């Protein structure tokens, strides 16, 4: 089921004018920031489908930037997010694309700072609900509605077991898990949805496991 809670239907409380183009966009920006681990210094935002056609009128642009600044859907600062971004040293660029994506409301955020770069693709599926469809070229399906951990690692035997063991040691229950790789033996990605928000201590421990290159988390 795409929608599980009544508050997906009656809600969210948000700044207008569009749940999929404004509230959904803010959530995509915020999850992208969570995955990056901090506020990036620069971002290039590629917009597809209906997002590309109508982003200015819907405030999709300010909402995405607001999300990257960690604002929730009902944060009044979304309206002035461009000015706030300037104050926070976040530079941004919007690039409307003509290619057709699977879903008409798709945005791809390529962001970075002096230490890191990351690409996150999100889709807004209606009523303010979103899914993350791609991270650094890996296809995945992540709703952002549950706390989750993303682990980038070398494609080696034992990596998955070691991460699962580490979570088990801290009594973290795994609700859903997806594993994918671009090519056998190279880089792979684990997407792990869990029942509770993950402490930074656990994230640090996972990142010390051999062959793990990056760990990001989404809290809920």
């Amino acid at each position, binding site marked *: 089921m795409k929608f599980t809670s009544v508050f997906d239907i009656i809600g969210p409380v948000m700044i207008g004018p569009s749940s999929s183009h404004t509230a959904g966009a803010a959530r995509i920006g915020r999850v992208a920031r969570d995955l990056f681990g901090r506020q990036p210094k620069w971002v290039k935002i590629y917009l597809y489908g209906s997002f590309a056609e109508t982003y200015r009128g819907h405030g999709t642009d300010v909402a995405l930037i607001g999300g990257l600044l960690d604002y929730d859907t009902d944060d009044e600062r979304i309206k002035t997010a461009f000015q706030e971004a300037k104050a926070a040293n976040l530079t941004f660029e919007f690039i409307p694309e003509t290619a057709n994506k699977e879903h008409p409301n798709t945005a791809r955020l390529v962001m970075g700072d002096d230490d890191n770069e990351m690409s996150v693709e999100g889709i807004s599926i*209606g009523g303010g609900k979103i899914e993350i469809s791609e991270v650094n070229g890996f296809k995945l399906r992540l709703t952002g509605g549950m706390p989750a951990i993303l682990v980038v690692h070398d494609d080696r035997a034992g990596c998955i077991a070691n991460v699962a063991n580490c979570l088990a040691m801290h009594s973290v229950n795994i609700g859903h898990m997806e594993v994918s790789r671009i090519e056998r033996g190279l880089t792979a990605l684990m997407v792990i949805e869990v029942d509770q928000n993950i402490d930074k201590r656990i994230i640090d421990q996972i990142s010390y496991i051999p062959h793990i290159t990056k760990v990001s988390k989404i809290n809920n």
Partner: protein
Amino acid sequence: MDVLFHNVRDLVERAEKEGKLISELMIEQEMLISGRTREEIFAQMDRNLVVMEEAVERGLRGVQSVTGLTGGDAVLIQNYIASGKSLAGDLLLDAVSKAVATNEVNAAMGTICATPTAGSAGVVPGTLFAVKNKLNPTREQMVRYLFTSGAFGFVVANNASISGAEGGCQAEVGSASAMAAAAIVEMAGGTPQQCAEGFAITLKNMLGLVCDPVAGLVEVPCVKRNAMGASNSLVAADMALAGVTSRIPCDEVIGAMYRIGQSMSPNLKETARGGLAATPTGKAITHAIFDGGDLKSLLKSRTASN
């Protein structure tokens, strides 16, 4: 996932068998899925109700959108009601004005509660605060109104769509209006089956509604679509309460809505490439807003030529 209902038939059968309200089943399902208590869930919905009430009040005081394209119509309708000349009836027009009020606040980038979306956020609260004056519900009944709306919206969202970009305006204002009709029926004391009839009658009459926002903004025709949606809800609710039934069952209407949405051209699904957005005036408004034209004199000349 374990849920209490997947479609309207499940919902109505279970409600009638267990002697429960639709709203009660939605509350029980939310408890089941979220693991939270009834009090927590009720409190969260109560907060949504507060947001809705504040948006209606703000809209009735008069707002203008960021572009200047919409705003102030809720006040005009209230003044007209006060003049005593209303033809359609005060309650119906009150719902219309309150739906407009909410959507004018939305267009002004104000705070609203999506029901089920922001573009369709006026219908459920608009009808609720209008029937409130007639039915004198308790606070609990008002919160339940939102759970009943939510139960039907939940079925639509999971079996069809509530997104204009995916299904056209029938998926947004159409769904919202049908959700509101079901909630009105429950609040007025109708049976769960009558809720479903009200829902089906409303949605049937909003099938095919295209999403053609001028300049891609949630303003024209969205604000007035919410108004018409609210009137649809009230009339359909009255019909259901009178004992009128829909020949096509509720779930089949939802299925039809989904397939119509899929076969609709992308030009008519929130891209602002077709329908009203593609009319000469629609294009002139787009040009005025985004390419530095003079929107004020354009709107003035429209009023003058009318």
